[in-house]
């Protein structure tokens, strides 16, 4: 007797197949979000805010209400929607170029205001959609389109650690960084996102999850090599962990 233990989440459109490059980490994170929305039974009460970059096409994949925002301003749009409709579940889905480079001011101030929204930030250490330019989170020495000799600290500075900075804001209720390198870490990522969703459903404050994801095309690697690189190199600069969790502090 066979039992179905896994199936394509209901919150993904039946024909909404991902248009990302092979091996891209976005697909895994979008699937996890869809699974969680199914598990919390939030499909009719969710408003997703898409951003600019590879994270833009949410309405092509999700069977949810999706609002678009200008570059970096997803958290502002989410703030407005959540304040108008406090009973809805509102999350933003952004990349590192959107949330940590162009819209970092907005991200920080949303965290300081303690808005009751959830932000998922995919960190692949470059601007993926526009051709792999350096972003604020690019590692020192990483070769990108705009740093062909590798990022030099004396010229363009050091990588920005978004999760650590957001964790310092008083309005943040939950802040974590996860990496989707293997099955174990994908499960951990799902637990972190589940926690971030619960924080909003309980109305405790701003929840922020940074997900390290591979970008094989712009890193010029095969998908399996890119995942290895992420585990061995990116994780040493952007360490994974939970940086703030107010539910733990209360216990």
């Amino acid at each position, binding site marked *: 007797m066979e039992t179905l*233990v*896994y*199936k394509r*989440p209901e919150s993904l459109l039946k024909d909404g*197949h991902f248009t990302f490059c*092979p091996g891209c980490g976005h697909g895994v994170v979008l699937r996890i979000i869809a699974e969680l929305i199914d598990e919390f039974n939030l499909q009719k009460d969710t408003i997703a805010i898409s951003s600019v970059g590879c994270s833009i096409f949410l309405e092509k994949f999700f069977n949810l209400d999706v609002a678009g925002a200008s570059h970096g301003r997803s958290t502002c749009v989410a703030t407005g929607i959540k304040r108008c409709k406090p009973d809805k579940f509102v999350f933003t889905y952004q990349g590192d170029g959107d949330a940590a480079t162009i819209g970092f001011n907005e991200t920080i101030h949303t965290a300081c205001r303690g808005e009751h929204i959830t932000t998922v930030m995919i960190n692949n250490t470059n601007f993926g959609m526009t051709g792999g330019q350096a972003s604020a989170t690019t590692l020192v020495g990483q070769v990108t389109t705009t740093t062909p000799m590798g990022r030099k600290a004396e010229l363009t500075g050091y990588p920005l650690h978004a999760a650590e900075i957001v964790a310092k804001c008083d309005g943040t209720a939950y802040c974590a960084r996860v990496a989707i390198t293997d099955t174990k870490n994908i499960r951990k990522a799902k637990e972190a996102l589940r926690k971030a969703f619960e924080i909003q459903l309980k109305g405790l404050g701003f929840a922020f999850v940074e997900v390290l994801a591979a970008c094989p095309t712009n890193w010029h690697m095969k*998908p*399996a090599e890119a995942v290895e690189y992420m585990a061995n190199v990116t994780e040493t600069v952007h360490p994974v962990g939970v940086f703030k969790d107010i539910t733990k502090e209360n216990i």
Partner: protein
Amino acid sequence: MGRIVIDKDVCKGCYLCIKACPKKLLKISSEPNQHGDFPAEFVDKNNECTGCAACAMNCPDVAIKEVYR
């Protein structure tokens, strides 16, 4: 005994599932799909699959659409 269902026309051939399978039951197909990619193929002659769904969790394109145990 487990079984997976691969939507071969959705598979883009990143082969992260091959890396993830603890029993090494996935391999690269010799037949291309409609996009010209060589998809992953499930070969389980000795019924070794446990239905752990590690392949489905690692698939970035949800090409592994069903896992049975």
